[in-house]
């Protein structure tokens, strides 16, 4: 449970992400704090399953199958959310497509897909939802990205470039919309996994290195999401905040 002042009762949230992971965890955290939530994902069947899980928190849940790399689909989806719920208070951009391979083996098509999903989706959602938030003169945009927005890792060139793009979009939009009651922040997740990673050879190497000696669980991102989405953060904007068990702190 979160402190009473962080309650999201009566708020409308939109989580644009993949159904397997972030839509589920981000959606559930916001709903648990009292928000009604719209979630999107491309995979329709899995999206419905995720919606069912999020619905267990007892709030109104709307699931809209959307390809967020397509601006027209995003606009349609946003219109539908506004028609159903009347407004959008919180936007969580959590579209993530992982790719790890040597730079020279990365094809142009792969590069484009990684940038499309991780970066251009955020562009589409910020534009369509931003228009609505500007009308409301109030809104919270939270870009759920990776700490690789700021650090390099071997074989992650496309992914790092895309994440860095979303981070800079966060900072620039913060400056542009600060006077309109819209805060724009990014959460950087560290090494996260739903399952225990002990055993896999590359993962052993990593686990030895990170200060907490364990992966984070995606559910551990929820409390910061809720705090940032709450009414207590009018002054907190343009920031990149990590949920990473000190991974970004150490040398």
């Amino acid at each position, binding site marked *: 449970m*979160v402190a009473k002042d962080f309650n999201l009762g009566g708020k409308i949230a939109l989580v644009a992400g993949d159904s397997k992971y972030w839509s589920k965890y981000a959606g559930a955290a916001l709903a648990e704090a009292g928000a009604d939530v719209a979630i999107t994902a491309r995979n329709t069947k899995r999206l419905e399953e995720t919606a069912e899980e999020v619905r267990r928190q007892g709030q109104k849940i709307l699931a809209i199958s959307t390809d967020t790399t397509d601006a027209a689909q995003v606009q349609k989806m946003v219109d539908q959310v506004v028609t159903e719920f009347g407004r959008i208070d919180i936007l969580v951009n959590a579209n993530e497509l992982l790719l790890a391979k040597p730079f020279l083996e990365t094809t142009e098509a792969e590069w484009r897909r990684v940038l499309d999903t991780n970066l251009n989706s955020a562009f589409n959602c910020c534009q369509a939802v931003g228009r609505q938030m500007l009308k409301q003169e109030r809104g919270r945009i939270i870009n759920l990205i990776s700490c690789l927005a700021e650090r390099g890792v071997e074989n992650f060139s496309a992914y790092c470039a895309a994440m860095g793009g979303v981070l800079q979009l966060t900072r620039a939009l913060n400056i542009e919309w600060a006077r309109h009651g819209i805060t724009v922040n990014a959460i950087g997740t560290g090494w996260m996994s739903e399952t225990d990673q002990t055993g896999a050879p590359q993962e052993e190497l990593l686990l030895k290195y990170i200060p907490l000696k364990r992966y984070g669980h995606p559910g551990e991102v929820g409390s910061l999401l809720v705090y940032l989405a709450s009414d207590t953060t009018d002054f907190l904007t343009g920031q990149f905040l990590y949920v990473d068990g000190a991974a970004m702190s150490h040398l």
Partner: protein
Amino acid sequence: MATGNGTLQGKVAIITGGGTGLGKMTALLMAKEGADIVVAARRVGAIEQTAKEVRDIGPRALAIPTDVTDPAQVNNLVKRTLAEMGGLDILVNNAGIVRGQERRPLWEVTDEDWRIGIDTNLSGAFYCCRAAIKHFVDQGHGKIINVASGNGVRGARGDFMYGTAKAGLINFTRVLATTFAQENIQVNCIAPGFINVFNLQPEPSTRERPGTSPFIPVGRFGVPEDIGHLALFLASDASNYITGVLFANDGGGLAGGIAPTGYAPVIAMEED
């Protein structure tokens, strides 16, 4: 009765500099969520007043006169807290001071000015962490929240000691977080922007600031609740995977800062 959700029920928090401003607001918001509060600073009247307001909310409160630049007084603060409150779970290093650097050339800054600036804003937090952290290690949990400043992230003209000490505090946070990650001790840092603390001061202050600012991206100064609520979030168990992180809460300033607020050119794309 505490009126929150009880997320800090049964926890004991020390808040240095808790007699005024951001520290006082932090004390009151944590008390609302159920925490028992120890207020530590030099002015007895101010810390007694905060303690009284905490008790009015519900939880227990103790005012312990402390100069954080004196290690013996800091050790005593922690000792008395453990003895009289029966525990310690949260340490907020909020005591801080801007002094002796008001638009002076560097060559006029005295040894004493430098010493006080570094002692209050950096060494004080070190003394408090040193005194408390063994207890945190032994009990297997603890929360440390350091209050730094945007001046510790970027250089402010003529701000020699304060900004330098706060920068030290920011990296001290990272070192502690890394060192004690496995002991389940979370250490985070808050960098407030310009926060108007005037309304909370017990006596009239010369630091009154207007409500709006053309320089801050959001267009206004912050209020103490902005910082108090962030400290509350970082003190709760809900944030246990968050450690070593700098939370600037500054109305957007640090995300920009390369051009003045209001600079918004329009340049058309030229294809050749």
